[in-house]
């Protein structure tokens, strides 16, 4: 176990190191801050500003989480605290099924259903023109893709709260909902955060489905109806094709490195939160 842990840690490190080696050519001639914060993406002119892609990733992921987290937590609370055992037996395989659907299928479904829905109904409702290929389309598809993992982990977490703790609250005359709100959720908080982190890391790297519906325009989105071009989509769309352009491959590998670091960064942040929460409650 110990060896495996060291091994997987080592792999992450080796990957990061490899990516860093390969992205050195571009780092040699461009300052990192310009690469990260410049909005100008013109590879043919030698301008590689990643900012639109970084923001695209943050927008799509952020909005996806904003959609997924409340829905998943309510679902998990219902399944773990209220639903009859038979309901749980039925829903578990359904949720697993959702997790097993290939992401291309989610993408197709997004193009066929979500994109037109946004173009014809949702955006006009807010008085906005949108092609439908947008942050919100990517976020909805992504949210649904991360449902299973968040729900699964959260249900487990809620069920691991000892029944006696709930009982203690009920015995004081609290209602079921008061008990869930003040005791169960609180007791489960560290695990709930872990569930969200898992969803988050999955969302960051998810490429295919988002690439199909997010619009892929290299501009910083300013509303959820604008198109976005997340980092993974950039890499998947272009790597292996545009390599005749000087420095392009180095730029894409740098993009991968950035993606890796962003994911690591969020992991570390959430782990710090997790430790804090654990300390203050336990």
């Amino acid at each position, binding site marked *: 176990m110990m060896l495996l842990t060291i091994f997987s840690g080592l792999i992450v490190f080796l990957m990061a190191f490899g990516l860093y080696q390969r992205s050195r050519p571009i780092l040699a001639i461009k300052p990192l801050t310009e690469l990260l914060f410049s909005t100008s993406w013109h590879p043919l002119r030698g301008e590689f500003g990643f900012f639109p892609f970084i923001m695209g990733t943050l927008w799509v992921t952020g909005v996806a989480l904003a959609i997924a987290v409340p829905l998943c937590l309510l679902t998990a609370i219902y399944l773990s605290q209220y639903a009859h055992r038979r309901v749980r037996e039925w829903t578990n395989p359904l949720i697993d099924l959702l997790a097993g659907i290939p992401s291309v299928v989610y993408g197709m479904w997004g193009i066929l259903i979500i994109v037109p829905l946004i173009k014809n109904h949702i955006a006009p409702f807010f008085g906005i023109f949108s092609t439908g290929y947008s942050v919100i389309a990517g976020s909805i598809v992504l949210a649904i893709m991360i449902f299973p993992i968040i729900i699964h982990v959260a249900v487990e977490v809620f069920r691991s709260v000892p029944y006696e703790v709930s*009982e203690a609250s009920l015995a004081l*005359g609290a209602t079921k909902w008061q008990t869930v709100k003040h005791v169960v959720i609180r007791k489960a908080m560290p695990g709930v955060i872990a569930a969200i982190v898992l969803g988050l890391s999955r969302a960051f790297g998810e490429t295919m489905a988002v690439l199909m519906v997010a619009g892929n325009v290299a501009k910083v989105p300013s509303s959820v109806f604008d198109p976005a071009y997340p980092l993974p989509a950039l890499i998947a769309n272009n790597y292996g094709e545009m390599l005749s352009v000087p420095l392009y491959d180095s730029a894409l590998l740098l993009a991968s490195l950035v993606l890796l670091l962003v994911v690591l960064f969020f992991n570390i942040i959430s782990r710090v939160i997790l430790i804090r929460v654990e300390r203050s409650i336990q």
Partner: protein
Amino acid sequence: MEFKTHISVQNLDVFYGTERALKDITVDIPDKKITVIIGPSGCGKTTLLKSFNRLVDSMDEVKVSGKVFLDGENIFDPKVEITHIRKKMGLLSQKPFPLPMSIYDNVAYGPRIHGIRDKKELGRIVEHYLKQSSLWDEVKDRLHAPASRLSLGQQQRLCLARGLAVEPEIILGDEPTSALDPKSSQRIEQRFLELKREYTIVIVTHILRQAMRLADYVVFLYLGELIEHGPAEDILVDPKEEMTKEYIKGIIS
């Protein structure tokens, strides 16, 4: 000895799925006395205790029939408000389970649930009941520390304070000292003896010596059946039933 009845159990049956855990129990629990429920493990003591505050039917697949009267009201009547019943009883479980919050918030939890918002008032309640469960001196400087940092014995007294803070009429204890060291157990027992002036107390135990120290009234269960009940001096000293005699001599346990 004359007893005034507080809880009156009539023909109570409890099923877990198809397993009948309590069989036609009829017994009166006396007011402002310590009633001790004894019997071997698995005989239904916990089930009987949890019937009193209806925790027993909060689980899936549990069927209850019969009546339990509390202050003249059948608590299994579908019309009664369950939270109202539970507010009348403080529960001490086998192991202390503090709520995931501070010492202060644990005690204030019940009063807050029942609508007390005033800070001063809550502070007064917390202090009063921590004193009543003889925990105040040990925690008064760290009321806002997490309750889980207390020792087991302290946690159990905190749970007692938490239960008392909703101003119940009855204290239910399910082997409330079984997880504690002898000294902590003794402190809890001492509390009970003092509290019975104001509260009706029902305690489950499988420790016969504890029953002898505490009991005014004894209920003996065996395999879900009520074998014998009566004043402590009758049941523990001179039982009528063969089964009770054997249990008290330690032949069945």
